[in-house]
């Protein structure tokens, strides 16, 4: 009985530690993206996104949408995070151009932190200007998608 109580207290303690560490991570990406976020984001872009969206984020005419000055990249974070998690196969239209290739979901390939990093990188590069994406935002949307 006594030992069980100790276990519970230890677990609670660990929970508090975890909870404590979380805001710090979130803070790191909300309080202006540091060089590490950008470096991580750029690496993920190059490894995961570049093959289709291209080195200059110009996309492929008629096939893959550009991410330069993109209404999607700079648009509502919820929709943007949703596209990365779920993929997109709707025949996107931007400026009267349609794009036919589908984007696969990246919910298993990328962790929340990686999605936050790459989107934060995109939202401050290639002519895009929008607020960083936090890991908390990504986690929330991932959770809501599970429901």
């Amino acid at each position, binding site marked *: 009985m006594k030992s069980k109580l100790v276990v519970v207290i230890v677990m609670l303690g660990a929970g508090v530690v975890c909870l404590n560490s979380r805001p710090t991570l979130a803070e790191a990406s909300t309080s202006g993206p540091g060089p590490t976020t950008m470096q991580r984001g750029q690496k993920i872009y190059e490894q995961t996104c570049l*093959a289709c969206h*291209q*080195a200059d984020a110009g996309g*492929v*005419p*008629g096939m893959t949408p550009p991410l330069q000055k993109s209404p999607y990249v700079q648009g509502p974070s919820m929709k943007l995070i949703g596209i990365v998690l779920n993929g997109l196969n709707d*025949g996107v239209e931007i400026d009267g151009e349609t794009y036919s290739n589908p984007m*696969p979901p990246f919910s298993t390939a990328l962790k929340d932190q990686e999605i936050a990093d790459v989107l934060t990188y995109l939202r401050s590069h290639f002519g895009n200007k929008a607020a960083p994406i936090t890991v908390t935002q990504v986690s929330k949307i991932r959770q809501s998608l599970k429901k």
Partner: protein
Amino acid sequence: MKKALNYGILFLAVTIGSSFLFLPHYPAPKTLILPGGFHVEVIADSLGAARHLTVTNNGIIYVKLAKLKNGKGIIALQDLNGDGSAYKKTGFGNYIGTGIYVKDGWLYASSNTDIYRYRLNEKGEVTDTAHAEKIVTGLLDRHEHNSKSIVLDNNGYLYVNVGAYSNACQLQDRALGSPGMNPCPILDSAAGIWQFRTDKAGQTYSDGVHYATGLRNVVGLDWNNDMDQLFVMQHGRDQLFQLDPKLYDAKQSAELPAETMYALREGDNAGWPYVYYDPFQKKKIVSPEYGGDGKKTGGENAVDPIAAYPAHMAPDGLVFYKGTMFPERYRHGAFIAFHGSWNRAPEKQKGYFVVFQPFKNGRPDGNWEVFADNFAGSDNISSPGQALHRPCGLAQGPDGALYVSDDAKGTIYRITYDAR
């Protein structure tokens, strides 16, 4: 000198003529690089997404657009004075698409789901542009690889490509770790060539013949009269490295698999998605999604390509040269328009040129060579959006001139030969 002067006048005439007819006028594109004795003129520009094109016996050029231009999806270019100095431009057809082909007094054109035909008068003009006869309807369009290229044989049949709405028939298209579906359910209604009657309205899949299968996506195709046979160019699969980084590195992925030419007979299977063609091993290799390891061969029942070209260059146009304007060695050979790659990233992109493939006795004979280069305006393209122009369609005029369409800006080129 006199010759140069003549060309100068011709150039001026074209420039002035086109300024009048094609407002707003854009700066002339950088000159194409051609073999000695060949010349190029721009006969139209700014048409937008000019996909395939075809020329009547009277020299009227019809261009199919993948994006409406002033509400029109087909543009007719008519040489007003018969000397190439000025072209009348008219538009009709309110649908987008790729395929267009002229044969025996009819103009055939495709949207991404249907095929139409228009009666031509003795001058090669479509007189009733408002009433097209819909001869085929209900072909699959699921965004990816949705263009419907068309060609006719000499026996009243039309051939149309229905591309796979997928890269490699994975359960989840283009997703890392997603397995290949076996059997691939896409093959029943796409990833192949269908044959239809040219003179019957309202045909659907069930009226046609499933002529060939296992072709991932064909955009360039032509009928070879010497062999009385359909020849097609297949776009090889993408993303070997992204989808199987354990087996392939980025460099291998940029060079694999080959873009391939097939000479088809009814019932042929080219092997997609189960195998791809490796131009270095010269073998059909089992796709990684179907248990391949980069070496294991497969596709025993599938036909081999009759020619292979570097990976991902996107062959969008194919035409056999039947004219006599070009020198002897070009006659009966094939011109191939390579639209230019995207799937070689992070490596430098490749293609953006028109290739000549010599033929002998109806089969490729000898190495292919770049025929018309510099569409992109630079040979250092890292992303296809940087290319100024991208060759897509090819057609031969009645005098033997070769026409090339560019679907980046909508430039139409006319290439002629004059050795003097």
